[in-house]
């Protein structure tokens, strides 16, 4: 048994404690415990909490892109029926908050930095009155005398090195490109993306004296409390957020957004609860966008297809002074070999809504482009795309020399290829035709960095022999309720129906929050640690060593004795708070989840319409905590890959930076009809360096490269190599062969 250690994760944990449990609940494909509430409409989301005498607020957005608000004609709307207040407080937020900021974003709504920035809040007795008043409100502006460019590609846009992505430079890439037997030098572009979580951002604010209670839709509560408190110049201890059910986040709810502080200020002023729900259009226009990217990929390969050089340079965008810049090259750093390299991200400063995290920031768009370019190299070398990737799996991280923790890339490629039937693929394009449709297959690797972050959780073994897990960790659809219960059930020897999980309330210990795929492994590790402490005490109470202790079905056995928990606990609850902090393992190893995507598409020979016919994904992300919810995470990611490949694109007007397609009618997320049967293979793996659970993140892995496999399948189907995502009809048609061509 491992010695009690401090909560910093400094060395790999090979004890694999969860494999030694007797309960057999870990990893099982158990149903989500909150499922019955969700399917019956009785799970309570942010805007649904009952609050007596609650007023309704509607945000007012700027109708200019840059300038200052000179006059708000409040009086005209204050005389409208039911209108209670028009607020344009300096503390209201101008930009959205980046993930894990833990401090206020840019505040002050008198200054307008981008089109449709919130500038005021109208509050009324009911929603219809507030909406009417918000639409009626007249605002006068003065234009900015220091304009910021709207187009990241324009000469006026200031471009600088991304503040938070260190460039990687090694050897001489230019020379490697000259020496290469095969050299690929291509430029791709990806458009902006929206998270488009189904639940719009909403907050109900209520004051009790100096204490503020918020029911809201947020992903990372312990950070969000600090952000709210900082905005309002109050102590975080006086802010409580309650968010047991969150209707999706995908990055857009990592930090607080405009409605939260506005609701809090309005509630204070009116001395009554205030609810502010953003409209779908407001969510699109003001919350968060994934930056568009322009990416240059250079691949220099020797005659065997081995990479001797790799370049990945990207241009992304954000508002002036934002630290965040889409970390496009994040997985390129460690995925393939090639010591001569240049990886670099530049950011153009432009006037559009805040750019920030949208599911898998970096890899989501970086991997799909890298993997499309790898397909071009496979084509140039004549090497099978799967073999090309296996051939380029590095021994250690190029340039940096860091060793890898457990890595299942080769296994994912092999098993995925086998399950998909990759050997049926015909390497040249335009070989298979079914009626009006060209049929093709493509593949891509998957990779997403693994992160362990600080987290706490309390586990109580109750006197009645049941267990309670408590943390402010959120479940945004990720499966936190399920997996935290399974970890506790396995560690404490309890059937799952005797474990209760309470989440999403900042009065509970601070979990990691949901983001960066780190929620499960970080908060899960804290639960594991708390259970270890409980096990220690149970062993002591039973009078055996921890090694001899066996816990199953509420019975503790060891040293020839056996006692049920209620008996052993003698009427007292046993509560422990476990915690985890990232330590040396984060620097000592390159940690990532890996996988492989395989896609079959049909491309209409006349119209260029592309239909995904089937997909297979094989993924290795350490220990699987719940095979059902993990599979769903992968599945969902692959659906995002379909959207990213074929339909999703934020369209900005380059004259004023306003978002043209600001809702779900115009921004096309995949629908049922777009999504075929998807096969997901979960590989058996333990990664001792990743977390004490030997588990890695899975929430974002399924998107990281998925769109590349579809683009590669389009090429294989019809020979259209489109270097601009999404692959819409207009981009494919110019590349299509004569539709009356015979296949082959």
């Amino acid at each position, binding site marked *: 048994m491992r010695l009690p250690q401090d909560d910093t994760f400094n060395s790999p944990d090979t004890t694999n404690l969860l494999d030694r449990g007797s309960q057999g609940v870990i990893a099982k494909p158990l*149903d*989500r415990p*909150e*499922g*019955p*509430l*969700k*399917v*019956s*409409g*009785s*799970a*309570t*989301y942010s*805007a*649904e909490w009952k609050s007596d005498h609650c007023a309704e607020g509607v945000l007012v957005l700027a109708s200019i892109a840059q300038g200052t608000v000179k006059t708000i004609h409040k009086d005209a709307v204050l005389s409208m029926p039911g209108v209670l207040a028009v607020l344009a407080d300096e503390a209201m937020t101008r930009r959205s908050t980046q993930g894990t900021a833990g401090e206020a974003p840019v505040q002050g709504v008198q200054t307008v930095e981008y089109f449709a920035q919130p500038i005021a809040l109208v509050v009324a007795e*009911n*929603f*219809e009155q507030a909406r*009417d008043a918000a639409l009626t409100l007249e605002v006068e502006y003065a234009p900015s005398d220091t304009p910021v460019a709207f187009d990241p590609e324009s000469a006026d846009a200031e471009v600088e090195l991304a503040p938070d992505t260190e460039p990687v430079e090694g050897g001489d890439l230019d020379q490697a490109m000259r020496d290469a037997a095969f050299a690929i030098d291509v430029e791709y572009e990806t458009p902006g993306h929206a*998270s*488009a*979580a*189904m*639940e*719009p951002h909403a907050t109900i604010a209520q004051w009790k004296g100096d204490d503020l209670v918020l029911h809201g839709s947020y992903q990372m509560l312990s950070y969000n409390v600090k952000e709210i408190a900082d905005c309002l110049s109050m102590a975080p201890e006086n802010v409580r957020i309650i968010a047991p*059910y*969150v*209707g*999706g986040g*995908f990055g857009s709810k990592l930090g607080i957004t405009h409605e939260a502080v506005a609701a809090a200020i309005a509630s204070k002023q009116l001395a009554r609860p205030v609810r502010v*729900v953003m*409209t*779908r259009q407001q969510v699109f226009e003001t919350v968060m966008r994934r930056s568009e990217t322009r990416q240059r990929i250079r691949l220099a390969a020797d005659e065997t297809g081995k990479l001797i050089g790799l370049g990945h340079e990207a241009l992304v965008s954000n508002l002036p002074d934002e630290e965040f810049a889409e970390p496009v090259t994040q997985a390129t750093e460690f995925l393939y070999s090639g010591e001569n390299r240049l990886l670099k991200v530049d950011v153009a400063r432009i006037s559009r809504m805040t750019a920030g995290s949208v599911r898998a920031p970096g890899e989501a768009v970086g991997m799909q482009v890298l993997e499309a370019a790898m397909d071009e190299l496979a084509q140039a070398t004549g090497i099978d795309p799967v073999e090309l990737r296996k051939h380029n799996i590095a021994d250690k991280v190029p340039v940096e020399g860091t060793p890898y923790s457990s890595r299942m890339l080769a296994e994912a490629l092999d098993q995925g290829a086998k399950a998909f039937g990759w050997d049926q693929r015909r390497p040249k394009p335009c070989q298979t035709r079914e009626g009006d449709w060209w049929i093709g297959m493509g593949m891509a690797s998957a990779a997403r960095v693994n992160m362990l972050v600080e987290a706490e959780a309390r586990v109580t073994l109750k006197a009645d022999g049941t267990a309670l897990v408590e943390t402010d960790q959120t479940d*945004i*659809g*990720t*499966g936190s309720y399920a997996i935290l219960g399974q970890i506790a059930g396995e560690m404490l020897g309890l059937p799952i129906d005797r474990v209760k999980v309470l989440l999403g309330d900042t009065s509970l210990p601070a979990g990691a929050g949901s983001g960066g795929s780190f929620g499960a492994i970080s908060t899960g590790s804290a639960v594991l640690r708390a259970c270890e402490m409980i096990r220690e005490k149970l062993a002591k109470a039973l009078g055996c060593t921890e090694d001899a202790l066996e816990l199953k079905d509420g019975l503790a056995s060891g040293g020839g004795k056996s006692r049920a928990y209620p008996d052993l606990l003698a009427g007292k609850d046993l509560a422990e708070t476990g915690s985890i902090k990232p330590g040396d393992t984060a620097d000592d190893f390159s940690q990532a989840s890996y996988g492989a995507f395989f896609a079959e598409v049909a491309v209409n020979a006349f119209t260029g319409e592309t239909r995904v016919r089937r997909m297979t994904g094989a993924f290795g992300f350490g220990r699987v905590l719940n095979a*059902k*919810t993990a*599979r*769903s995470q992968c*599945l*969902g*990611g*692959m*659906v*995002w890959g379909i959207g990213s490949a074929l339909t999703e694109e934020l369209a900005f007007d380059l004259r004023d930076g306003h978002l043209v397609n600001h*809702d*779900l*009618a115009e921004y096309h*997320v*995949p*629908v*049922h*009809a777009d*999504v*075929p*049967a*998807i096969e997901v293979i979960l590989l058996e793996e333990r990664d001792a360096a990743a977390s004490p659970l030997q588990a890695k993140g899975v929430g974002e892995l399924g998107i990281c490269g998925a769109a590349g496999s579809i683009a590669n399948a389009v090429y294989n189907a019809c020979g259209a190599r489109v270097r601009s995502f999404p692959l819409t009809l207009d981009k494919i048609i110019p590349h299509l062969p004569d539709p009356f061509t015979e296949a082959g």
Partner: protein
Amino acid sequence: MLTACVNGTDHPLPSDPRRTLLDWLRDDLALPGTKKGCDHGQCGACTVIVDGRRMNSCLSLAQLHHGDSIETIESIGSADKLSVLQKAFVTHDGFQCGYCTPGQICSAKALMQELSDGWASAVSDDITVTPAITKEELRERMSGNLCRCGAYSNIIAALEEVLADHPLHEGASA
């Protein structure tokens, strides 16, 4: 007085003509199981069943429903007494965040009635005969209900199971 019957009980309709059916259900009748995802008829999260047919409740004004019979997720089954369809959503993990789920379930329930009534869809080969229940038919008919978590194939699996276990005339009441 204008009234509508919601889940078996008559309620007076709101006096404000701007009130949508969705806001009336969620806020005035305290039935928040019906979700607001876009308020523009684009996502299907607000789907309810009006006189047996599914409808985006955000696109309909409450006062238009005098005399109508409206069924929401709350009447399909409660957490401790789930319908067959709801159970299938749980076992197939036909949701993640759960926000689109009540709409998906209301839509699926009405879809079974439509199939049972022999309604054709855009993907039906022959519109003069009762369509065969294929994945393609189900996907087409569910495409008004968006799920950003991407649980689509699990939702279709749940529907297939219910339809396989319950012939259409029963499935519609599942």
